[in-house]
């Protein structure tokens, strides 16, 4: 019976680790700044899932409160990140991370 299986905290922790891993690989592999940026957001949200799961397990409100702060930070990051990306895109269309390699040494 499928309904008899009760998801435990570790399920959520594993799911969150998998999501975090997908985000990490995405940042390292993808070459579009926007997609890399989305992957960072995925990583932050994976952490949010761990926070909620752990807070429920510990029956401690701190973790749930932390999630709100993380959401605010993620929103602020969107504003700043998109600002920088847009100002680059204005200068040249279709910029990928490989094009942005003027600085090296």
């Amino acid at each position: 019976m499928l309904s008899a299986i009760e998801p435990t905290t570790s399920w959520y922790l594993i799911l969150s680790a998998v999501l975090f891993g997908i985000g990490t690989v995405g940042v390292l592999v993808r070459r579009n700044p926007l997609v890399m940026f989305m992957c960072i957001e995925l990583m932050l949200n994976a952490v949010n899932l761990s926070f909620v799961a752990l807070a429920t397990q510990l029956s401690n409100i701190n973790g749930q409160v932390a999630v709100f702060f993380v959401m605010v930070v993620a929103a602020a990051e969107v504003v700043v990140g998109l600002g920088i990306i847009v100002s680059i895109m204005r200068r040249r269309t279709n910029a990928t991370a490989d094009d942005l390699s003027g600085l090296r040494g």
Partner: protein
Amino acid sequence: MLLANGLVGPSIPWTDIVPLLILLGGACFLLLVGSLVTTWPRHGYAWFTGATAAAALVANCVEWNNLQKEVGRSIIADAIFVDRFSVLGSITVLGAVIFTSILMSAYMQRSDEDGPELYALFLTAAFGAIVMLSANDLIVLFLGLEILSLSLYLLAASNRRREQSQEAGIKYFVLGGFASAFFLYGIALVYGSTGSTQLYVNTSTPQGIAQALGSQVAVSGNESLLLIGIGLLMIGLAFKVSAAPFHVWAPDVYEGAPTPVTAFMASVGKVAAFAALLRVLLVGLPQRVDDWRPVVFALAIATVFIGSIMAVVQTNVKRMLAYSSVSHAGFILVGVEAAAHMRGDGLASSMNYLAIYTVLVMGSFAIVLAMSGQQDADTALTDFRGLAKRRPALALAFSILLFAQAGVPFTSGFVAKFGIMKSAVDVGSYALAVATMVAAVIGAFLYLRIVVSMWLEEPDTSEPLNVAKPVAIVIVLSVAFTLIVGMFPDLLLDATRLVRFAPR
């Protein structure tokens, strides 16, 4: 229940957070009035920023004086500490803000695009840095880190006419966000295994991380969670202090960002991140010292060597200084390792190094700014050729600052490096002390290379080099500090010797 009784917030001792309020108020004022009143006097924004930082600095000095009797206290429901450590860190950060605002006014004047936004960002960055170095709660620390980092991303990308500046901004943003996510995951896992995000709390309920770890007797399931968490926290902070192998962003970002911003990132970012690293490790996780000390050891060795060796092969002075700041981070990590032995004066010597390093970095980048033409160009090593024949005073000042970075006696750099070495030897970290001295010798080659090129080679051009007055002020002040502290080290050491964390 909570709502029925009325939600009672923590009591806030407003006088203890005056420096933070001044910075925040100054930033808001600058943005609001700056957009309403369009004609400010010449250097008006810089004067206002400098004055705001100076006011916060005075408030911190008063606080330092008030802390004569007690070590410090934890305020706002144990969210932040006010102790000697945080006050000294704040003073360093605010000094850097004053220097940077002077440099920025010269930079902006040159390209005729003065505006209030960047100065406001300097103030919010300093706000974030001070929150970071006084935080007692990992979530508060994370917020401070983000306030600092978001301001720095924008500052790095702030020169819209220069493509390298934008590139620096996006690189710093992507890698910085990546590292922040690791740091946050570390917080979540440490929270999961200890049930708290607070580093140290004096009461038994709720417990802080230090208390929870102190009372736990071998909790098997949580151990791996905790160790992964500590590792992720250290990755996040190692990135922010640009410790190898997490330093790859530093040279690109330092080179691309506008020079005053580079000076600001190199000083304030590093002070805040090292202060956070020291506090998280020594106040929150002292019970796990045997787990994290080897990591700090390895980071320190890798950082001093990679920083020194990579600096030697660069051809751009800004990049050289970036790698030299990586190797300075390695030296401070040696101090962190010494502090981990829980005796000796590793903590004091690390803070001492940070304060001295901040002034050196300001002076060095001020000279790079004086040398560079429009839009940060002309910072290649060849542009420094024969500087002694064009502007002997500038060459002399740069030589003094470079010798100080190399650690030559009678300069402040010697005091800093000697303090770190002494504290490492005092606690028996001989291997680390010897390795870093070898790296320091390699690093000296870099500084000598610039000095030789300035004094012994012929200049390519005989164009007169005009140094703007604000830049000259910063150079003179930092050289004076370097020499005075080098000759009379007790002026600074008497203050840093008193640095303590509140719970100890």
